[in-house]
């Protein structure tokens, strides 16, 4: 993609929207908000297309826009709506009575982390970005990425251990 004209933008969205939406969901923990976030990030990306010199960097720009926008929404405690003509399909529901497996339980604890800590984990362990890349994307130092990762892991371990001990004490 040499220059991002409207046609190229549509093609980019059509081919990459599902992948981008997954990351947006992990950042927001909600499919509807994830779609809002992605739409906002794509709008920003198109508006900035003249500044994206390398056509191959469009996706990276869109991902960065998602991360920075989600942080900005969180800082301002934005819980607002975005225009949409169609409701997103609801997330798949688990059958009632089915216990969460370990991964689901872990996710429940990940969701409760502060958004910035969760973003660090998503970038490091879902996007597989290096500490330096994560730091650049979030506008923080590599040391902070390390400390946030460590702190998040510590909190997750503590949460899991606490949940386990409650489970064990149940009659």
């Amino acid at each position, binding site marked *: 993609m040499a220059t991002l004209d409207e046609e190229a933008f549509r093609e980019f969205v059509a081919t990459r929207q599902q992948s981008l939406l997954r990351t947006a969901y992990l950042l927001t923990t909600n499919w509807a908000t994830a779609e809002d976030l992605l739409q906002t990030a794509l709008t920003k990306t*198109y508006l900035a297309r003249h500044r994206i010199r390398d056509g191959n960097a469009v996706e990276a720009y869109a991902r960065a826009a998602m991360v920075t926008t989600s942080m900005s929404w969180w800082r301002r405690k934005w819980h607002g709506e975005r225009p949409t003509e169609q409701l997103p399909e609801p997330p798949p529901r688990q059958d009632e009575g089915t216990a969460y497996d370990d991964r689901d339980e872990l996710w429940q604890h*990940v969701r*409760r982390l502060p958004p910035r800590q969760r973003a660090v984990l998503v970038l490091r362990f879902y996007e597989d970005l290096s500490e330096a890349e994560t730091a650049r994307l979030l506008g923080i130092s590599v040391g902070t990425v390390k400390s946030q990762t460590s702190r998040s*892991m510590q909190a997750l371990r503590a949460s899991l251990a606490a949940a386990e001990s409650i489970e064990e004490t149940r009659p």
Partner: protein
Amino acid sequence: MSMEQQLRESFEAQVGSPPAVHDLADRSLRGVRLVRRRRAVVVVTAAVAAAVAVPLMTTARNTSRTPAVPATQLPATGSAVPLPSSTATPASSNSSASAAATVKEPGVDYTTEGILRRAAGSTAASVDLPRHARALYMTEQGTVVLAKTNNPQLDEIYLVHPDGKVDTIVKAADIVGIAVEGSRLAYSGGPSAGHGLPLVLMNLATGKEIKRLEVPMASTPVAFVPQGVLLANGELGSESGLSTWVLKTNTYTDWSGSGGDFGLDALGGIALVAEGDHSCVAIVNIATHQPRFHSCLPGVKHPEFVVFDLLAPDAKRYVGSGSSSGNYDDRWPVLGDATTGVEDHRLRQVFADAGFTVTSSVDHPIVWEDNSHILVNSRGAYGEYLIVRCDVDTATCEEAVNYGGSEAGIDIMLSRRV
């Protein structure tokens, strides 16, 4: 299996079946056109306003019978020009200069571009804030400000005294919310001793820490309640919940059994709670945890309650904002009766006629000015930044401040009385 590997697998499992997305490119491009249109309108409007405002201001200077525009209604810098009034009320349908002269200043502190404009009663009329505010709370001691520091990891709470003196109360990482009452301040954030996420109680007057408790999940202080501090757990969403930090015993009581509830405000033993999918609010007795009533906006497709403000001291009324169109650019103030659950939507038409919208991206978009007036952080028909005052008994509104402005850089933030 290592925690890293568990996380990778957990993330993959969560996003295995994303929902289908329709017309995303079209919607994004519509957003692009909307932004461009707003920018163009603001540029043209600012130019027209400048042409109108300069002669008006010259006339005002030369004619002693014409009252001057109060300083707080002019931009803090020369970059923005006040726009003509666009309110639907008769009082403000005159020219901007005469309308401005008859409108009283907001009865709460507010910020524009990092400057704190004080309500009557403070010695300092305005104060340059050391760091831009994220939230403001008016207290007897002065205005408590939650702000970001230059370090993106570090947040700060400081107190602006009535005389303009600024005292830092605390600097800590990831302060996600604060509650203030009298001289007490509660916040969540800062370093953990390893047991979870810290909640801290401080004395505003002395700056000393009084109590600390570590809780297993992210909890945001909402308000002080008779038992301690009402906390909203998690983020707005299906996993959010409610709990109380009981100060007497320094314990943490999780009491939202159903999940998905989110604390909005509390006063006098009752809490305003957004329920489940957030289409409805409930008034809940904090002592018994029992809901008194549920109230939902009729015909709402994508309901969203932003921030509610219960009216002190009797908590008989509350205000919030809602939208029935599903468009976040189409919000109006909603007045609710906290004893009956009846909601008043008359202000919707006033806002629609004037082209006003409630600005949703600030912590306190609607606050009580007194027992019958609310102040609304708003955008006008041309994207200009406004503070709109509405009389909730007569359902009429007027511009209290018109700051002009465009998409970037300018923001108005209202303070909440606590």
